[in-house]
């Protein structure tokens, strides 16, 4: 065999060669000092290059665009798609070369994709409720012409658990007339009463335009959460819509027929939607904070896994053989021909540290002949020359015995019962 080229040695170290190729190369290296030297050199370059590439780890800090730098919650409807567009284009336009573009696909991909669909689901829900609110306002306008001065169609806010005055206020700004009508038809004192059945009342004087303007201004100033406002507006408007429709159909029957529970259900749905949105935001913030964690922890964990998890890949590693040897070298170590298991073909033989062979002299290497059974489990036949004064294996131990000057031991990846069967075949 000619000398080994560097590419082959790298392929060997990368585990890309077949077993027979490995055997050939190892046999060659055992007999060729130049190739042995080259292998050591290649190992050095191999390890050093891997270390250098490993230096270029991704920064532990999240990228500027994924940093959790959101002091306030993003406006509703600001989906990842929206976020990825605007700042990036601004950066390009302004000519900033390394201006970080916003996140397209985040690092915690599974959450973000799911989050996108969840947000779209809620966006659809809010759109439907806002649309219903708009329709309600339109119908309300027409119904006002029909029933002006006859009915107070809806009572609001008396038992709503979530929609406080502050949260209803922006709805007034958003949804326009529907909520304003409700606000001016229900006096504050009555709104605290538990009864919510619509009733026939005398027409009330319309508030002065200045009062309405103040009310609207106050609601704008109090706006805290656009999403909550939209949802509340839609919900309230939907309730008004339902009530109005019932009134239009039969104003007399509306006194008893319009169920409070219907409006209550809608409010509860809105409250549920708000709670879901809050939860979404919390999860979003948690994901951003998680991205900011020091990746060193992750690397440590991976390193620990790497230390704990991998089983030796090569048969030599599994057998604990630190140097493969041939028959001649084994005979030289033992001072006589090596023992074998009759009827089995050895995979290879090599030297093992004495401390790794139970019962052997730990200061000297042990010759290990390695076999494998039909299930590819390794079987070892360890042999070590007994020095004068060294104790011989106890007779009770069926897997350790001596023949002449040689101490033998059977071991491996199979059970003791199976190993005992091989003892009679050792020659």
């Amino acid at each position, binding site marked *: 065999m000619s000398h080994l080229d*560097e*590419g082959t040695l790298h392929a060997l170290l990368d585990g890309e060669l077949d077993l027979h190729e490995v055997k050939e190369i190892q046999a060659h290296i055992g007999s060729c000092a130049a190739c042995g030297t080259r292998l050591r050199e290649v190992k050095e370059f191999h390890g050093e*290059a*891997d270390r250098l*590439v490993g230096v*270029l780890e991704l920064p532990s800090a999240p990228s500027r665009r994924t940093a959790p730098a959101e002091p306030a919650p993003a406006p509703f409807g600001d989906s990842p798609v929206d976020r990825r567009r605007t700042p990036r284009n601004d950066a390009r336009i302004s000519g900033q070369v*390394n201006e970080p*573009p916003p996140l397209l*696909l985040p690092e915690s991909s599974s959450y973000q994709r799911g989050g996108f669909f969840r947000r779209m689901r809620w966006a659809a829900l809010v759109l439907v409720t806002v649309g219903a609110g708009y329709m309600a306002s339109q119908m309300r306008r027409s119904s006002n012409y029909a029933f002006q001065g006859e009915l107070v169609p809806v009572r609001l806010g008396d038992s709503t658990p979530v929609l406080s005055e502050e949260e209803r206020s922006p709805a007034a700004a958003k949804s326009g007339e529907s909520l304003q009508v409700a606000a001016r038809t229900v006096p504050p004192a009555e709104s605290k009463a538990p009864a919510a059945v619509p009733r026939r009342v005398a027409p009330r004087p319309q508030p002065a335009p200045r009062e309405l303007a103040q009310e609207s201004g106050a609601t704008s100033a109090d706006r805290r959460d656009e999403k909550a406002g939209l949802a509340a507006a839609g919900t309230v408007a939907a309730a008004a819509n339902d009530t109005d429709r019932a009134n239009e159909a039969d104003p007399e029957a509306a006194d008893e027929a319009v169920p409070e529970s219907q409006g209550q259900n809608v409010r509860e749905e809105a409250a549920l939607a708000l709670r879901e949105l809050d939860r979404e935001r919390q999860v979003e913030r948690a994901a951003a904070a998680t991205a900011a964690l*020091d990746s060193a922890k992750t690397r440590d964990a991976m390193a620990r896994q790497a230390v704990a998890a991998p089983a030796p890949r090569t048969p030599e590693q599994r057998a604990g053989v630190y140097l493969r040897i041939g028959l001649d070298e084994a005979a030289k170590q033992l001072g006589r021909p090596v023992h074998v298991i009759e009827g089995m073909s050895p995979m290879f033989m090599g030297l093992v540290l004495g401390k790794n062979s139970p019962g052997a002299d730990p200061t000297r290497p042990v010759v290990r002949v390695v076999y494998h059974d039909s299930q590819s489990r390794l079987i070892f036949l360890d042999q070590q020359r007994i020095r004068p004064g060294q104790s011989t294996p106890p007779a009770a131990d069926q897997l350790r015995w001596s023949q002449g000057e040689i101490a033998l031991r059977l071991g491996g990846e199979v059970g003791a019962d199976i190993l005992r069967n091989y003892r009679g075949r050792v020659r």
Partner: protein
Amino acid sequence: MTADLARLFDEYYPSLVRMLYRRTGDRDRAEDLAQETFARAVAAPPDNPRPWLFAVALNLVREDGRRTVTRGRRLELLRGEQDRPTAGPDAEFERNEEVARVRAALARLNERDREALLLKAEGFGYDEIASTLGLAKGAVGTTLARARRRLVEAYRAQDRGNNVAS
């Protein structure tokens, strides 16, 4: 289709970004390029995804580099990012120095050697490297051997230069 893409994304996105970061030295750019790669995967779902994704990503790096040069910008291959702000100023300085030296050494490799090395660092087998870079499988070992040797030699040459200079 969507499920397949989601699986591809989960499986390969971190590795792709890491490789692109090592290649470009800019995390944001690496993420952009990875996203562009997956966008292309949506348009034309690949049969053999890993080599395909990495080949497309490396092509994008090359195209992006050419555009950057055309616009007169300077590639920031040697730029070290502020990676570990908690490590203390000395450690941070040393680390940034080390990163810059490795990047400089990596920049001295030719394109193919560098890409082979980076793909190997992402756990690619010789088959996949050959498929991604359009090489014969038998040439991968030689390519990697040359790449590793040159990287280490270039890195050590800087050390020698520093010692002489000091």
